[in-house]
């Protein structure tokens, strides 16, 4: 009997400690470097669905979670356009995905996305994650948040996760262009020098 009580107490304490430690060790799930990214089918601002499999000639992708309403994302808009202009011809197009719940953030709805894309001259698809089921698979937590994928025989492999560069404030003051370095390395058949970087961004709103 006393053994049962001891066991019950132990179980209770274990449950309690799990309950109380989980939030402290909060980590995000999602793709890690080397994982194969699942394809998706998301609506573009022109109403058409876009999937990675549509890009027969691509060698990889610069998947960028971004939105209209995050000041960090806005500061990077021109740099995202520049990335697409530089790397789409080399086989690494930008695909932008807007992950926010538009009932929480109306400024990110499809109409606003269309307008923003037109104003900034987006040269790439600007997709909406309407069901909010794609960004969690990637493990995107914020805007902007970039994932560079390399197309291989077995699928699109995650090669880089993180920031675009090391200075959000001033494109001219950037010393390391993380995404460019990653894509350049992949194009040249080299290892990505810095595979994961961190940057401040706006939480994805769900």
């Amino acid at each position, binding site marked *: 009997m006393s053994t049962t009580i001891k066991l019950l107490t132990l179980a209770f304490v274990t449950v309690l400690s799990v309950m*109380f430690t989980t*939030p*402290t*060790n*909060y*980590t*995000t799930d999602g793709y890690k470097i080397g994982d194969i990214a699942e394809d998706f089918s998301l609506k573009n601002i022109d109403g058409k669905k876009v999937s990675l499999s549509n890009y027969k000639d691509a060698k990889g992708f610069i998947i960028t979670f971004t939105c209209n309403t995050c*000041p960090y994302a806005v500061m990077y808009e021109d740099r995202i356009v520049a990335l697409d202009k530089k790397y789409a011809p080399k086989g690494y197009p930008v695909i932008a995905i807007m992950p926010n719940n538009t009932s929480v*953030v109306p400024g990110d709805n499809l109409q606003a996305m269309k307008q923003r894309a037109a104003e900034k001259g987006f040269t790439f698809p600007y997709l909406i994650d309407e069901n909010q089921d794609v960004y969690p698979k990637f493990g995107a*937590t*914020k805007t902007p*948040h970039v994932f560079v994928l390399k197309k291989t025989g077995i699928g699109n492999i995650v090669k880089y996760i*993180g*920031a675009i560069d*090391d*200075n*959000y*404030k*001033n494109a001219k*003051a950037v010393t390391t262009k*993380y995404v460019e370095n990653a894509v350049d390395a992949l194009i040249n058949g080299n290892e990505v020098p810095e595979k994961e*970087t*961190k*940057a*401040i*961004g*706006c*939480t*994805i*709103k769900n």
Partner: protein
Amino acid sequence: MKISASVFLAIILLSCNSKVEQKAVDKTDNVAQNEAELKTQDFDLEVYDFEGLSPLLNKTDGKTYVINFWATWCAPCVKELPYFEKLQANYNSKNVEVILVSLDFPHQYETKLKPFIKTHNLKSKVVVLDDADANSWIPKVSENWSGSIPATIIYKNNKRGFYEQSFTYDELENELQKF
């Protein structure tokens, strides 16, 4: 650290000041304090790079620190700020200090951040982190931080919790009570 000597001096002066203020608050009522603060027409922000901020994240003086990373442009941050203010009000006398680390953009210090601090009459200590190379310092705050805000640290000496999430007041108080 840009101007280490003067920043240190500022920290020392400010920490002395806050102690004096704390004693003063005990003796006066809140209304009088509000009026006194509203009369202050202008004030200086404490702006640090990460090296300058770091000592605030690593004190070992037995006090419990609640460090919230926020910005005026971050809607969920603004939403939860009152809970941090309430926590500061309720636990200030119980060896707990709330520090609000603003990540506002330098060009908006005067136009957004200062007016926000004034109009919301923030009682918690506000400091500003201006360090563009976030990849160098985010992992030093927590290996688990992806970089989204709001984010919060609660620590006491060497015990530390990190939370990349929004809080309600009850959740925040609940976490604090573990320290």
